[in-house]
């Protein structure tokens, strides 16, 4: 598969990725390791919480989003990592059995001033369940190498 470089990312809709099935077992395993709050581990406690039922950790959803980005395009992009996340919103609970899709839009693509051999591509990602409900929205820049023949 051809490696994507900075030049391949133009503002606008970039792609839709998934579906990614999420099991109860993986929700419980992630929560036990990283976020053992009762609303992520215990059915009765979750039902009584604001989430209204067992729901995956927001950090689990972020991590799944990362994996969906990797499988969708980062895995064959000349990515050099990310300096951070501008904004992340958890909009609705991640439920056991959800089938997730990820919509990626390029918000901005610009050449780096400090490292002119690279560009900074700012993505907006939205994760939705099978009913089309947005669970999570993220805006994050990623550093991507420019094509070797790009003007330095």
């Amino acid at each position: 598969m051809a490696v994507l470089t900075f030049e391949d990312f133009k503002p606008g809709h970039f792609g839709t990725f998934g579906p990614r099935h999420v099991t109860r077992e993986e929700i419980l395993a992630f929560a036990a390791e990283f976020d053992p709050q009762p609303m992520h581990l215990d059915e009765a406690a979750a039902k009584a919480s604001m989430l209204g039922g067992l729901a995956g950790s927001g950090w689990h959803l972020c991590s799944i989003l990362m994996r969906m980005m990797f499988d969708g395009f980062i895995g064959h992009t000349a990515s050099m990592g990310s300096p951070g996340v501008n904004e992340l919103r958890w909009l609705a609970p991640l439920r056991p059995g959800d089938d997730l899709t990820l919509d990626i839009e390029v918000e901005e693509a610009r050449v780096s001033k400090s490292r002119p051999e690279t560009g900074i591509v700012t993505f907006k990602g939205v994760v939705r369940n099978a009913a089309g409900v947005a669970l999570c929205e993220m805006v994050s820049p990623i550093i991507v190498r420019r094509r070797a023949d790009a003007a330095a």
Partner: protein
Amino acid sequence: MHFFEELEIGARREVGSFTFTAELIKKFAAQFDPQVFHLDEEAGRKSLFGGLAASGWHVGSVCMKLLVADGQRQIDEAAARGEEIAIWGPSPGFRELRWIRPVLAGDTISFASVIESKRLSDKRPEWGIVQARNSGSNQRGEPVFSLLATAFVPRRNAG
């Protein structure tokens, strides 16, 4: 855990430390972020990170892990004193997450949380909304991670 009324702007809590071993870095990366610089020492050395580096999502998840453990300690202490226990609600999100420096294999990161703002929820009168700056620094005291988190915190005497 504190109730909304007891949280003071500027209050800081040290929430604990965590050592990112090569084994843990690779395990998380294999599952969620299999970019080569998170999986392979040699590829990490050749990358911008300069060594096998933890996925940023691993760093964020470990920060959450330590926050939850610290919260549980506070709950246990309040229970031992016979006090009413505040169970914090979920988070609507975060802003300004910065992966400031790479977290490399063997680094020990210490995390802290500082209350930045608090306000009452318009829609949910029994809850307040609190913003906290959660951050991590390595064994040399260099900042590596920071974010501005938001959470629902229960009000005392609610409802």
